[in-house]
């Protein structure tokens, strides 16, 4: 091939390659930030997808969204709560919009996104997780598994759209540039940074098994009402014991604190203020069931502090605290704080009786 021919051919190849790269980058970045957020955040994507379907199915019913953690996702049997009872008026549509490891910032993000897509709920139930209330520092480089500490930008930034940044930066002012850098890293080469969700969705054979397992647990197992029951047959006594030990290692030391984390308080109040601004009723501030062993890890001062703090929040925002920590027997838990399906039904039954129905009646 002549030299000039080689150069012309080289130019064609390089330019076509660069343009292709830019096109794929732009398409995926636009998609993630506009319509295909589930590429970056499959848990949210599946949640909002199912919510949209339920709203379309029952357009006339009022909507109550439960914002919380995996405890609520496993424990609030939203499909059961949404079933009409013969002879009675159709209850509100209840939907579990919970995230594994969810913190107030996640709940606020979720709610803002629901409002943005026209799925504004009539009411919300907000889960309070006492372990998140403890005052902590903001270390860099914390492991991704430590979701009960301040957010890890490297892990979380990929889940955010650019619109979400003002919120995150307000929450974590000391690490604004870290968040921006992490977000830019995540947005560049999204085919690489989002490869687990992409392969798990479109090329399951190639998805690393441990990532598929995690996604199966927190994404693909999400039911049509967002409820994710822990069913009989999916665990053994051995696995329950192991899970219990993991819970103890994770939580025991977190339930001995003497001050409420100011960042937790600020974001929880931001969430409640947002509800007020949007005219979204706060049905209750819910503390999910825990077994007796779990409850014994609270230091006495911590117990009082949590009670006073949650009561203060409820009073400030005109709602109630639903302290359901001692509602369910010990043998109905997977690990001391996640309910089995057999425990979630009696919990949901009592929740409906003591909380939802009175609220609906008062509203009507």
């Amino acid at each position: 091939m002549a030299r000039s021919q080689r150069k012309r051919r080289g130019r064609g190849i390089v330019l076509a390659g660069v343009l292709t790269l830019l096109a794929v980058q732009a398409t995926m970045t636009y998609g993630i930030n506009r319509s295909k957020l589930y590429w970056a955040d499959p848990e949210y994507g599946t949640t909002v997808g199912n919510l949209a379907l339920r709203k379309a199915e029952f357009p006339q019913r009022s909507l109550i969204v439960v914002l919380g953690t995996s405890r609520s996702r496993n424990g609030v049997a939203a499909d059961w709560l949404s079933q009409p009872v013969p002879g009675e008026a159709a209850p509100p549509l209840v939907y579990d919009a919970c995230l594994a490891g969810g913190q107030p910032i996640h709940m606020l993000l979720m709610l803002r996104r629901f409002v943005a897509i026209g799925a504004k709920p009539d009411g919300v139930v907000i889960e309070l997780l006492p372990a998140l209330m403890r005052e902590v520092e903001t270390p860099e480089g914390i492991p991704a598994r430590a979701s009960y500490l301040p957010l890890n930008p490297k892990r979380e930034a990929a889940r955010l759209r650019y619109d979400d940044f003002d919120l995150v930066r307000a929450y974590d002012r000391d690490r604004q540039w870290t968040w921006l850098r992490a977000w830019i890293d995540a947005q560049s080469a999204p085919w690489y940074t989002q490869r687990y969700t992409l392969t798990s969705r479109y090329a399951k054979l190639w998805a690393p098994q441990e990532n598929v397992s995690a996604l199966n647990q927190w994404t693909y197992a999400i039911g049509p009402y967002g409820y994710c029951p822990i069913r009989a047959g999916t665990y053994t006594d051995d696995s329950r014991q192991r899970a219990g030990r993991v819970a103890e290692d994770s939580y025991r030391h977190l339930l001995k604190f003497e001050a409420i984390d100011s960042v937790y308080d600020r974001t929880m109040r931001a969430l409640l203020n947002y509800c007020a601004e949007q005219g979204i009723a706060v049905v209750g501030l819910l503390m999910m069931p825990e077994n007796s062993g779990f409850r014994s890890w609270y230091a006495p001062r911590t117990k009082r502090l949590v009670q006073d703090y949650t009561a203060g929040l409820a009073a400030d925002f005109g709602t109630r605290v639903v302290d359901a920590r001692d509602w369910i027997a010990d043998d109905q838990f997977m690990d001391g704080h996640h309910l089995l399906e057999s425990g979630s039904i009696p919990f949901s039954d009592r929740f409906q009786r003591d909380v939802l129905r009175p609220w609906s009646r008062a509203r009507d």
Partner: protein
Amino acid sequence: MSPSRSGAILFCTQEFLLFTLAIFAVYWLLPYRTAKVYWLLGASFYFYATWNEELALVVAGSSTADYLIARGLDRFPSRRWRQVLLAISLGGNLALLAYFKYSNFFIESFRQMLAGAGLETSGGALDIVLPIGISFYTFEAISYTMDVYRRRIPAERSLANFMLFITFFPHMVAGPIVRARAFLPQMRRPKKLNWYRLQVAFGYLVLGLIKKMAISDRMAMIADPVFADPGAFGSGAVWGAILAYSIQIYCDFSGYSDLAMAVAHLFGYTLTFNFDMPYSSANVAEFWRRWHISLSSWLRDYLFIPLGGSRGGGWQTSRNLMITMALGGLWHGASWNFIIWGIAHGAFLIVHRLFRVACQRRPELEFLLRSHLGTIYRIGLTFACVSLAWVLFRAPDLQTASTIYSRAFAFEAGSPMTQPVEILAILSSAVILAHLAGRSGLRKYLYETIPSPIVGIAWTAAAIVAMALAPDAGKAFIYFQF
């Protein structure tokens, strides 16, 4: 002994990409050739210093010593003085290698020997940090001083040029082992960035990414669990791991070489071609002409031939082959595994040589073996021998290698592979097809006939898919440890 620290710039990372782009941008803005050399030299030392600052000084010191010795070789006509200088260079480089890489191996082996004789010793291993790339740059330095001694090339007059030859960051960490006579003249040629060079770099980059991220790291997910605990796996999984590791090491090492060539092209340099479809070899001798070409040619030119090569009788040639391959094995790592691996290849080469001589007396057999079916058989046999030898290369110790061999050749029940067998089948087929396409000329034909925009789009799509298929934990390149 690991040289890396948390700030090290690793290949296939965002940091390396940003580093390379920054160096590239300034490089082509610099007007003078000398300025370009100094810029690259500074970048190369910075790159090395991110691994270990103190050892960067070791590289600088040993390079300076070799530069001065080569200048002396040019200057002094006396044969005796020249031999002394060469001996100093060889001794110095080999001493560096011996100290940093083999001290603890020699100490431990000596201790085991004494223990075998009933003598106990005290004391632990030396705390030595292995300089990254030492096996590669010492061999480059040795080849340089020997070429100057043999008057094949004049000594390089510019210290900066010589140091850049040694420390040029794309190839410093894991080769290819570049010859001075191939690299130094490139520094004196004017450099121009043109579309052709960019396209060549682009092509090597895509190839390197596919091999490393989509294939090698994926094969590691199959091989690593089995080599970590072979007793837990069945024979099927063991054979799967042997095949997977054969593919892993090829794609890992040749992928690195491709990336090194891509980066070098960005700066106007061409590095030595290091892999030429080695698994399409019909015998072990051909395998070593196609695998890690820069090392095998170095061993041939600076060890095998000085030992006598194949100029003596059959016994002497076999002896020279065995010494060369055993030392070649030792070069890879300070462990008896590598030495035995080298000896195994030495044995393969000797057997091949004897068989070839026997075939020459049997024309019908030779005809049969050179037929299509015969060639396929020979390629399969060569691949099987090479793959089985890789077990020694990969296993952490001889005990593990022994367990793998026993589970491979005696049917043993156990756990299956940890990854779907379809992945192994698909990626193995891809490597085979790529070899066939390369050997048959199909790749060249396609490249020259398909319109250039289609080629560009296809290469980009392939790179994107390769990155999307990269498994969770990206692994460092295997040859970084050498």
